[in-house]
């Protein structure tokens, strides 16, 4: 597509343009990461090793991990042209539930986590049914669920935050509490030994694994294709014998399940479950997905994109923090950089550029 026709070459140095245009496709491959690259560059430029330091990066990603996991679920929903506002509350509910299971029933982690996922999935299932069977717009359905789950959470906990550092009679942490901490309490790494000398920080591990798994599901399985189809053209999907209703219910259930999965992580991270936990996380999650290129119109988006989007958000935060930018200006700069990043990595950009490299470019109407 880089061949130039005689007509084109006639005005303006053609060869330069041609060469430039030859370059662009190659850029294309990297292009969707430019936003991230930009922020990392700023980080290195301003803070150097302080920024690149492994602990710093671990912390940065770790802090966002639970929201990142939500973002993966939300991405599935967005791909079907829906939206899930309830994930924040579901995470809150799950974190509270997990903390209570630990504190009140001294349950082991390997029971708590699956149970929380189940709880989340149940809520998500309701979202799915409301959206697909009752045909309530997902925005309303999940907004209602946001309110419902939060209410139940607060009722269940009587508005008391529940600590996860449960001490046994001997005053030391109970075995289960110890284990629970490894789900996210800063400084408590898992897999020490077989996952590197000082192990890895579980939230980061969990986030990455979730991304990989769902990337495979979306890109390799028929279910994944169907999600894209449902979002891209429901009628076509239906005519092809895809059970649209089921797919929609499935994605909402998965989104809820992931919120349930993220709950304990958030609780461990906060060493307590706060009745307000997860409040407004949904915005960060959706933002990560959309910055990563997911289209709220459905049918467009990838987990890799969402992963990048999450990194952009948390690293941006980190860089501004390390540079001790005054908090008010942080808000402003954050907004600006996000816009720049999104513009830079817009796939359209290259095509537009290619236009610009050819004559008569007053495209957009006055």
């Amino acid at each position, binding site marked *: 597509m880089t061949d130039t026709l005689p007509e084109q070459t006639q005005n303006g140095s053609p060869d330069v343009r041609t060469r430039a245009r030859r370059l662009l496709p190659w850029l294309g491959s990297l292009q969707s990461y430019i936003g991230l690259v930009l922020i990392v560059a700023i980080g290195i430029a301003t803070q150097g090793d302080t920024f690149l330091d492994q602990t710093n990066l671990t912390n940065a990603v770790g802090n966002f991990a639970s929201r990142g996991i939500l973002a993966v679920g939300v991405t599935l929903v967005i791909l079907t042209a829906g939206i899930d506002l309830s994930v924040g509350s579901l995470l809150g509910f799950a974190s509270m539930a997990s903390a209570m299971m630990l504190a009140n029933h001294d349950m082991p982690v390997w029971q708590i986590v699956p149970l929380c996922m189940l709880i989340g999935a149940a809520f998500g299932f309701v979202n799915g049914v409301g959206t697909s069977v009752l045909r309530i717009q997902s925005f309303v359905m999940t907004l209602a669920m946001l309110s419902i789950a939060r209410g139940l959470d607060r009722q269940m906990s009587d508005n008391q935050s529940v600590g996860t550092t449960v001490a046994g009679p001997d005053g030391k942490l109970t075995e289960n509490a110890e284990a629970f901490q490894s789900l996210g309490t800063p400084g408590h790494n898992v897999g020490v030994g077989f996952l590197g000398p000082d192990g890895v920080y579980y939230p980061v591990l969990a986030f990455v694994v979730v991304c990989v798994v769902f990337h495979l599901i979306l890109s390799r399985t028929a279910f994944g294709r169907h999600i*894209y189809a449902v979002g891209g053209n429901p009628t*076509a999907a239906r005519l*092809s014998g895809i059970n649209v209703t089921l797919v929609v219910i499935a994605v909402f259930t998965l989104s809820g399940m992931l919120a349930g999965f993220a709950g304990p992580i958030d609780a461990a991270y906060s060493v307590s479950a706060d009745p307000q936990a997860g409040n407004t996380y949904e915005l960060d999650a959706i933002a990560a997905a959309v910055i990563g290129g997911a289209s709220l119109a459905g049918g467009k988006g990838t987990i890799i994109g969402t992963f990048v989007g999450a990194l952009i958000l948390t690293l941006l935060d980190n860089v501004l923090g390390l540079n001790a930018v005054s908090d008010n200006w942080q808000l402003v700069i954050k907004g600006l950089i996000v816009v720049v990043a999104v513009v830079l990595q817009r796939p359209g950009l290259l095509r537009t550029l290619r236009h610009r490299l050819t004559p008569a470019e007053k495209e957009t109407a006055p």
Partner: protein
Amino acid sequence: MTSEVPPAPPLLAMRAIAKSFPGVRALKGVDLTVHSGEVVALLGENGAGKSTLMNILAGLHSDYEGVIERDGERVDIHRPKDAARHGIGMIHQELNLVPGLSAAENILLGREPRTSRGTVDRKAMDRRAAALLAGLGLDTPPRRLVKDCRIAEQQLIEVAKALSLNVRVLVMDEPTSALADAEVQRLFTVIRELTAQGVGIVYISHRIEELEAVADSVTVLRDGSHAGHRTMADTTRAELIRLMVGRPLGELFPRRPEQHSDGPVRLQISGLTRPDPSGGPALHGIDLTVRSGEIVGLAGLMGAGRSELLQAVFGAYGPRVRGRFTLDGKPYHPRTPGHAIRRGLALVAEDRKEQSLVLGNTVRFNGSLAALTRYRTAWRTVSRRRERAAVAAQMTHLKVKTPSLESTVSDLSGGNQQKVVLARCLLTEPSVLLMDEPTRGIDVGAKAEIHALMDRLAAQGTAIVAVSSELPELIGMCDRILVLCEGRLTGEFHRDPAHGPPATQESILTAAMARETVTDGDPAAAAGRGTTITDAPGASPRTDGSRDD
């Protein structure tokens, strides 16, 4: 409801099918029988109920009355899955593809081949898709996204999709509306292969000459009821038309024999060139003159760039086109469609669903959309009364079949939707009318009306540029026919031999495939590549296989 089983049960039998929509009684007890290896043509005016009947068969409507039998067994079909289970496949009138997925993924959507690990077997998928497409003379790469495929390609992908089901009954609802002759021939070959394997086919089309080519028998619907059944052999075009329209049809091509190429020049284009940085179609140095009262036709194989020529003139590509234009003697350069409309141009776009209609909105809304400023009141609001009056007038004028002006356009039958698009353009009272496949999906009766309309407009001094894939239509209606091939003019033919070479199917087709005149490379090679459509969208020139078979 027990109906006695006939000795040799037909492949498919639909009995006393009735269906209502809000405000419409679409079907009033229709029967349809298809035997194995038979091609049954379904004929009827726009809104007669053809698609509805077939949609019922395909399981799109869960609630209807009547019985469906396969091989004599009563079956109940209420969901697409049911239809598939009973070996019934359908190519729908409106394209229904997922733009974001590749051709292969669309063709095998819902039936993806799996690997042992349960993941999608992309290689197998691409192989099958490629094979199916090749069978239709298309070598579109299976991985190309549907949104990058031309409308004709898309329609053939739909066909491939239906074929991939290896069905026993295949319904084709106007499969050729976007196809040029060559593909049509292709499709017929495929149909013959299928019938040879004993597949029964229901074929819906408004091109009666096609029916004569493929159909064994014809079932005619009128206003949702069964108007008659004939075997193709012993019936005549006239009879069929009388059956479907209910009255003898006025002349199909009312245009008078003499050529009207002597009016004052309305639109003059010289050296129109559109480089395509975005991999879209390119147009190369096109000269075009349209005179008041003249109907100029644009012929060409699909991908020739006919649509693009109209769109470029209309400003759909913005000002990024080169060339010198004059409109009614005054200089003009395409800027935006809005600007073009203000300058008295109007465009009937190629793809009504994607480019023309706000499907979710009402007939009135869509009809008046381009002409709202004409109904301004002193308060700069839109006068509902005048708007409604104007639209209503056009609707009756074009005989649009709709429950009311306030019914949703998506609920109209395909042909009636097309008429709404026409109405919108006419309401802007254009002096130059650009029409891209204006009679796509329109029944013979309506076609005759639209032809009459074109003739009348021309007589009133409007200049008309019409694109059509139906050569007889072009030849019947146009004063001059320009032939495009790969974005270049390759021939001009006249209604009146006195003006120049006369327009005949042969001459036009030859010009349309005159690749050697545009690209170097010997005709043989050209013919060799003739049967293919090359990959990179719009990058390399295209043609198609109207030479073989």
